[in-house]
């Protein structure tokens, strides 16, 4: 498969009164054409910053890309100026945001908000753009689009607004769609509709999707691969099966164990992850997760773990994969899921490029 996006050792920080917050601390990942990658993590893990940095939407200053490359189709986006980025945004890469209540302009009719994109990137004239807008609204499942284009955002329900946002994002046939928690602010019943819509459209259009969420349940539904972020780093990445059935990082265990599921027996209680994420103005020494880790090793507090490779597609950043590490008992809730996956290596090895 062909790579659409390669992020290499990306670091982003924000200057604040209290010092420099290192929101993203050296993440690397690839995205293939037509693929859906989910980025999962708690709030403050840097997942939103990372995704907005791909479009260079973070305010700079105070934000700053301090290191790394973002190769989109081989082009480094980090080097592009704001003017050059205008040709990428909305056309090659587009984005939907968390809260459809606030991401649409309240004083502009829905139609013109979509037509803007068509006029900018496809140079369509007014009447053609209008035709296309109606078509787009129909595509995202908004009934009576001819009438809807003349309405304002406050006349739309939450789910309808998010559909309109999707129409905006898809207007110029982007190759990459970044969905930043697109269902978090919606009712549960609407959530699944929106997820289905995104999946459906992805297949029709053949774009790649980066799906940001804190909800693992959503991930299982939509993603091909999953990257788990903690404290500005990717701590584990693998296919959906690998993350759900053979997780290796204690943080991923924590996430899975704290996720309720229907087949749960009442014996197995939900397990929480104690504590709160670290202050990224002063990232802790060693493994950032160590203080909250039920399986912390002595070395976690001194040295940052390297990335270990578990299979062709599966990587995890934890000392537990070191050959000398003790074997630990998985939490009950995770243990029940785990199965042996054929693709796994016999033994984890250090990932390439790690010393």
């Amino acid at each position: 498969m062909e790579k659409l996006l390669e992020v290499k050792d990306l670091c982003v920080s924000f200057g604040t009164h209290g010092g420099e917050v290192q929101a993203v601390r050296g993440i690397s990942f690839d995205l293939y054409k037509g693929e859906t990658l989910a980025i999962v993590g708690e709030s403050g893990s840097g997942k939103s910053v990372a995704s907005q940095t791909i479009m260079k939407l973070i305010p700079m200053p105070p934000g700053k890309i301090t290191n790394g490359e973002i190769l989109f189709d081989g082009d480094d986006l980090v080097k592009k100026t704001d003017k050059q980025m205008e040709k990428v945004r909305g056309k090659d890469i587009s984005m939907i945001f968390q809260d459809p209540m606030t991401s649409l302009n309240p004083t502009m009719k829905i139609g013109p908000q979509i037509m803007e994109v068509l006029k900018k990137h496809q140079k369509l004239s007014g009447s053609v753009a209008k035709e296309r807008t109606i078509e787009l609204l129909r595509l995202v499942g908004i009934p009576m689009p001819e009438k809807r284009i003349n309405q304002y955002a406050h006349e739309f329900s939450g789910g309808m607004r998010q559909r309109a946002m999707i129409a905006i994002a898809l207007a110029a046939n982007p190759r990459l769609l970044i969905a930043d928690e697109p269902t978090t602010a919606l009712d549960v019943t609407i959530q699944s509709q929106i997820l289905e819509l995104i999946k459906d459209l992805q297949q029709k259009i053949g774009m790649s999707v980066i799906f940001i969420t804190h909800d693992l349940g959503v991930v299982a539904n939509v993603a091909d691969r999953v990257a788990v972020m903690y404290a500005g780093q990717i701590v584990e990445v693998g296919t959906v099966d690998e993350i759900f059935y053979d997780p290796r990082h204690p943080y991923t265990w924590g996430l899975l164990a704290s996720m309720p599921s229907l087949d749960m027996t009442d014996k197995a209680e939900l397990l929480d992850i104690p504590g709160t994420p670290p202050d990224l103005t002063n990232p802790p020494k060693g493994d950032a997760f160590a203080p909250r880790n039920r399986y912390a090793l002595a070395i976690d507090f001194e040295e940052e773990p390297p990335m270990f490779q578990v299979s062709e597609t599966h990587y995890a950043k934890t000392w537990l994969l070191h050959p000398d590490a003790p074997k630990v008992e998985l939490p009950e809730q995770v243990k029940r899921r785990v199965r042996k996956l054929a693709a796994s290596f016999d033994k984890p090895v250090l990932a390439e490029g790690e010393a």
Partner: protein
Amino acid sequence: MVKYIGRRLLYILLSLWLIITATFFLMRLAPGNPFTSEKQLPPEIKANLLAHYGLDQPWYAQYGDYLLKVLQWDFGPSFKYKSQTVNDLINTGFPVSLVLGLEAIFLALAVGVILGVIAALKHNRWQDYTAMIIAVAGISVPSFIMATVLQYVLAIKFGIFPVARWGTFMHTVLPAIALASTPTAFIARLTRSSMLEVLSNDYIKTAKAKGLSEFMITIKHTLRNALLPVVSYMGPLSAGVITGSFVIERIFGIPGLGSHFVVSIGNRDYTVIMGVTVFYSIILLFSVLLVDILYGLIDPRIKLGRGKKGA
């Protein structure tokens, strides 16, 4: 909409009635009656005069009479200048004041909005600081000091503009600037903070994610929403320009209603003071109504009559 305007009209009429009533009774409390200064009038002439102005009537008759007259757009006579009525003063003075006032309002809006937009777009950079220092200076210098300094420097010292009087456009420049200085500063600050508020909204991020340029985002998405508070400032702005005109017209010797008003204050010409006050109140209250309607028209979230709806 009709219901909303109807209700607003009711409040305006209530405010107006309060103003008329208050001024009427306050003026009766004023020391002496209008003719005290004119000494030794023969009693029969005095009685004639009082009868002529209706002052021999009991207070409730005078009050009712005054209310009725105001309803007919008649603000009564001047006690000092027998041949003149308040309506005469309004007819000759108000057009002049109106020209000056509109010029000042236009100037304040244009300069204030531009300063505010620049400050917000260049937030925390030198352009921002410069614009805000200009704005703070504008607020700190009362208009009459501004007017005096402008007149002294630009007209008397350098002779670029005429010193005073009314006639050509050049005559209007300095008074309009002096009149606009404080409102300009207010509008600049208002625009800036409202721009910053709008810029922090998600839909600006959406617009950026669409690939629109900063200029297009400002024009199509930010400015329109950021100007809504400026529109609601139009009411206080007109009030400021009207009261400001009292001193500015006097300094520049402009024959507007403001000058007449100040003269009548000096003369203690009670009926004129009362009439002009009522006239200005009417103008102000209706401009506030106009602004409210305008606001409702440009902000689709507001269903007039149902109040603000959640965004």
